């Protein structure tokens, strides 16, 4: 996934020169027709009028965005006030995703560093151990976490039996559980890109720095961090973006009270709300936020490239 974000079209071999457009055509057709076009239609739908059991009426309307930002009372005739419900849900999602990113960095960076500095077959074994959870079904991982931290789950049972706590700690259906779930879900996404960056780092640089009387801290800050930074940023994006739109963690671990953007959107299409234009508008706002993050990343990458 990391290599995919980086630009690797440097190769100039041209055995199949002239066939490029033909060979790339299926990709263009499939992704263009079944991803780009649908996203554009979603944009259109966010400006249509809702139909009551799902679906839309083809009539231009700003109602979806209006509902998102403004409160006009029960009958829609009061002067508009700012509607906080959805802004708070978005804000909470951003906060949860940011904290998850920070926690993943806290644990992920030392892990990536440790693995990248191993040698020989040990290294590939460590790496393999980190890779497996990366590919294991997210639903199953979330269910496992739910099972573990339930009121009558193994964790509480063991802590009770060991006499550490007098009564079960209530963790499920709290904000804490959602936070834990996000951290747990996307931790491997942080480790792998940082690993890739540290792996490329040539330790002769830090030896040279040490020869020139740089202390450990100075070497870390001035030599290593600038080189490893792209990996750290890539890791943060790979954790932050999916956390922001997460559905499984808030749904299975957070219950009905701890809504995130993902659950809000899902409810408009699969749940009881059934307001497609509003769901499309919320998804558009989420997508815009992600695009802002990615633009920031792309600019960072370009600056790095110029150096």
């Amino acid at each position, binding site marked *: 996934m990391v290599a995919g974000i980086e630009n690797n079209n440097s190769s100039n071999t041209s055995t199949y020169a002239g066939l490029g457009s033909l060979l790339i055509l299926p*990709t263009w057709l499939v992704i263009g027709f079944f991803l780009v076009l649908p996203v554009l239609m*979603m944009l259109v739908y966010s400006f249509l009028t809702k139909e009551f059991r799902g679906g839309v009426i083809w009539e231009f309307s700003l109602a979806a965005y209006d509902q998102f930002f403004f409160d006009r009372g029960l009958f829609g005739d009061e002067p508009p006030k700012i509607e906080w419900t959805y802004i708070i849900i978005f804000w909470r999602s951003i906060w949860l995703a940011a904290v998850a990113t920070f926690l993943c960095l806290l644990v992920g960076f*030392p892990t990536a560093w440790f693995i990248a500095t191993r040698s020989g077959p040990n290294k590939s074994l460590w790496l393999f151990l980190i890779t497996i959870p990366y590919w294991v*079904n997210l639903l199953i991982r979330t269910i496992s976490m739910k099972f573990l931290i339930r009121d009558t789950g*193994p964790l509480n049972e063991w802590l009770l039996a060991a006499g550490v706590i007098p009564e079960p700690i209530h963790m499920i259906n709290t904000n804490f559980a959602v936070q834990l779930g996000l951290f747990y879900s996307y931790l491997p996404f942080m480790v792998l890109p940082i690993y890739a960056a540290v792996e490329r780092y040539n330790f002769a640089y830090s030896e040279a720095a040490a020869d020139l009387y740089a202390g450990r801290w100075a070497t870390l800050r001035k030599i290593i961090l600038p080189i490893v930074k792209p990996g750290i940023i890539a890791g943060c994006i790979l954790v932050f973006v*999916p956390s922001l739109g997460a559905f499984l963690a808030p749904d299975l671990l957070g219950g009905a009270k701890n809504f995130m953007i993902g659950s809000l959107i899902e409810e408009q299409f699969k749940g009881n709300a059934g307001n497609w234009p509003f769901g499309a508008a919320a*998804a558009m706002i989420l997508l815009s936020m992600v695009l802002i993050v990615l633009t920031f990343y792309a600019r960072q990458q370009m600056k790095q490239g110029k150096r």
Partner: protein
Amino acid sequence: MARNNDMRWFPGFSVTTLLCLFLLYAPLIIVAVYSFNDSKSITNWGGFSLRWYADVFWGVEAPRFRAAAINSFIIAISAAITSTIIATMAATAMLRAGRFRGKTFSFALINLPLMVPEIVTAVASLIFFSAIGFTTGILTILIAHIVFCIPFAYLPIAARMQGIDDLYEQAAMDLYATRLQTFRLILLPLMAPGIISGFLLAFIISLDDFIITNFVKGAGIETLPTAIFGSVKQGIKPNIMAISTLLLAVSVVFVTLSWLVGRIGQKQQQTATNGGE
């Protein structure tokens, strides 16, 4: 070298790594262990038993799980084959066809499914299929899966192709091989490990998907993740832990296979380069 000068070593990093692995594996291992628990109440240990596995295959929910599993595998195999073919063509275009119009844009397009949050893709797909009047069902799931499998299949294939010197292809062309022959007889065999890795990863990604599938599946059609999700909504029963453990095992087997194939590929590549010099 003195330890305090060696930047490879930091205090606490090894402990953090162990903690990280513990955090990642503990919940999975606990569920796997409890899936062998011979007790109706999930958390009390009542001795080793395979009864919940029997329940998965022959119990009340078995027909539903079986149908879901069949759907899942049909979709995963079809999506993996299609996306691997598309990704192989794309990689050949990006790495072996020199310059062409829209190359940079193509690169962004291949990676687009990774950038758009899953829930957004899910909503967009549902809206698209309903707007063009496509009946949701197995076909809509398959189409959506092909889209997001493309970048996952592309990565190992492109990585592998990048490592192959085009000398061999040049040699073949000098000996009057057609481009198709060169592709079939030189490039394809050399790329095989990358293609197999790409296929396996695409397969796993398709098998695992929940959110997008949940949106674009028609009424009454389930894949394993949506069937499991539906059951979990009524509480975690022991048979869910058994089926989760089975799916976990499938993922581990496939990732291990992909890893081994990648390693064999690397070794081949090393010997090939060493022999050439």
